[in-house]
């Protein structure tokens, strides 16, 4: 089993280009260190003259490469600055091509390699630019009810606020579209969502279509082995600023979902009946939410 994508279907995590960007960061660090530590060996490798100013220039390019590597890990979105570095590298190799004593075959191969890396840089930059999503939040819960029953309760979007605490309401507009109202840090947030996948008894996928509110969700329902009901797996992808969907929050939603299905309603204790710190004793009249 691939534990990076615990459910079947296309893993949402790969759409951001984050893996590619990190790979390029590692590449920058490795190449930069090699250029700084052994400029003469690098010069021979790419077919340039290892005498004169070449090692000094290679060291400078190496330092730039290291700075890029660090920059990418600090701020992945800075990956597009690698393109400027690629141009500098190409200019250097072009200049070397003018020197007849150099190995033209190796230099041309180097140009090819640089163009290849440049293509990956463009791809990563475009993906990072397009993606508004942070890390996915995944949560799992086994519910002692059949997949059909569990699916049906989730598919009834208008009743999601029963167990998703931050939701004020969900209004179903038609078969595919719905309007969601949530509270984020005391302020209301609203978005329209559309269903992007719906396999009765198996899975539901949806996404926000409101500009500025990036949100994708998917929930799968699998029969648990041994007749133990349904394994529910929720995957939520959203912008890091959408603090509604932390792992703890999504896990709490699932736990309340389980309570609703298995016991009929969300279970309250004396302390949980009131928000915030509260002694385990009945709340005075009027403060129960």
């Amino acid at each position, binding site marked *: 089993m691939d534990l990076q994508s615990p459910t079947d279907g296309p893993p949402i995590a790969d759409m951001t280009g984050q893996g590619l960007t990190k790979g390029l960061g590692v590449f920058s660090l490795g190449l930069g260190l090699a250029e700084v530590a052994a400029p003469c060996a690098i010069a021979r490798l790419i077919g340039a003259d290892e005498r004169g100013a070449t090692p000094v220039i290679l060291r400078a390019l190496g330092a730039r490469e290291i700075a890029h590597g660090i920059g990418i890990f600090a701020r992945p979105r800075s990956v597009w600055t690698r393109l400027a570095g690629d141009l500098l590298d190409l200019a250097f190799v072009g200049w070397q091509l003018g020197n007849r004593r150099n190995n033209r075959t190796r230099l041309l191969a180097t140009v090819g390699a640089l163009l290849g890396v440049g293509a990956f840089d463009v791809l990563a930059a475009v993906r990072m630019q397009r993606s508004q999503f942070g890390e996915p939040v995944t949560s799992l819960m*086994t519910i*002692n009810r059949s997949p059909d029953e569990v699916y049906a309760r989730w598919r009834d979007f208008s009743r999601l606020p029963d167990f998703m605490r931050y939701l004020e309401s969900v209004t179903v507009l038609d078969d595919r579209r719905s309007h969601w109202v949530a509270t984020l840090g005391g302020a209301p947030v609203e978005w329209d969502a559309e269903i992007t996948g719906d396999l009765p008894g198996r899975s539901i996928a949806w996404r926000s279509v409101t500009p500025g509110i990036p949100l994708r969700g998917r929930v799968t329902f699998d029969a648990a082995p041994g007749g*133990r*009901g349904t394994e529910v797996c929720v995957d939520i992808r959203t912008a890091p600023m959408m603090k509604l969907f932390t792992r*703890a929050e999504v*896990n*709490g939603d699932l*736990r309340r979902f*389980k*309570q609703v299905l*298995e*016991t*009929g*309603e969300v*279970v*309250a*204790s*004396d*302390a*949980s*009946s009131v928000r915030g*710190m*509260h*002694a*385990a*004793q*009945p*709340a*005075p*009249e009027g403060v*129960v939410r």
Partner: protein
Amino acid sequence: MRANCWMGKKDVRVETVPDPRILNQRDAIVRVTSTAICGSDLHLFNGFIPTMEKGDIMGHEFMGEVVEVGREVKNLRPGDRVVVPFPIACGACGACQSQLFSLCENSNPNAWLAEKMMGHSPAGVFGYSHMLGGFAGGQAEYARVPFADVGPLKIPAGLTDEQVLFLSDILPTGYMGAEMCDIQPGQVVAVWGAGPVGQFAIASARMLGAERIIAIDRFPYRLNMAREQAGATDIINYDKVGVREALLELTGGRGPDACIDAVGMEAHGHGIPYAYDRAKQMARIEFERPIALREAILNCKNGGVVSVIGVYGGFIDKFPMGSFMNRSLTMRTGQCHVHRYMKPLLEHIQNGDIDPTFIITHRMSLEDAPVAFDTFLHKEDECMKVVLKA
């Protein structure tokens, strides 16, 4: 209403607090007629259980009269007399359907907190910290009982409160401790701790057919009760004699077939090992003082069973894993799945197989709860079990 509240370490006070109300449709409100102080309440009192908050109502052993029920409670009516099991269980989740009621998957609204400390969460428990749900306890005039259609046991007329009150916790807990030993004819069972749970573990081991039952404690009045009332055949006062030597002598050098730890996290002992654990616990480096548990493991017969019903809260040091592994021991443990024992044990009480009232030494008013805690903690006046009348 009036209720006994945890106000901080070694500080409980009877305060006036709001009356409980129905919060879920499967709740009942019970007017508490009798409630007891459990040995595990002393762990809360002494500040060894994390996530207590000032003002928390204590108590998980209680019974009383139903005064109000939620819409979904069909089996109870106002006026019914019930004993309430201390773990809160929904009856519908996988754990409940496997009869593992103290592991109910739905009754702890603070499961995330328990998961952080324990990996997965057990059931919610009345009056036993926020990690176990933040439920108000039963040392009060009234209590809200969630899943009242699953937990509370109706008590037939003709039985007194004192005869049935301990069905809420300590009688089933002691019974489960003995049951987990899987006692065969001719076997020897040793019980560490002759407090109320230890007494009932001894009495249960007797009902389950143990040949020899050895009680281990340091208070003569507790050891005497174990022998004269619970049914222990032998007693060991560890203040007077070495436990190991005594157990070897009583078992022909084999060690007991099964060892029950009815002590838990605040064990007492002697010498440097005890001072070591006490110091570490005070410095909060170690949660527990697992002296009885270590002793139970080291003294158990090769291939024997160690049954742990004493309460532990966190991590222990110097666990004798080498002895445990190399000698093929088995450990069985758990908070009692009270629901599955209540009815059979009620029958045992009705048949006269056991009369649980023998452990009661003190009867006090709810208003005297702080004094009662002090008396129980310091074992003053040969205190074994305090019943509070609300």
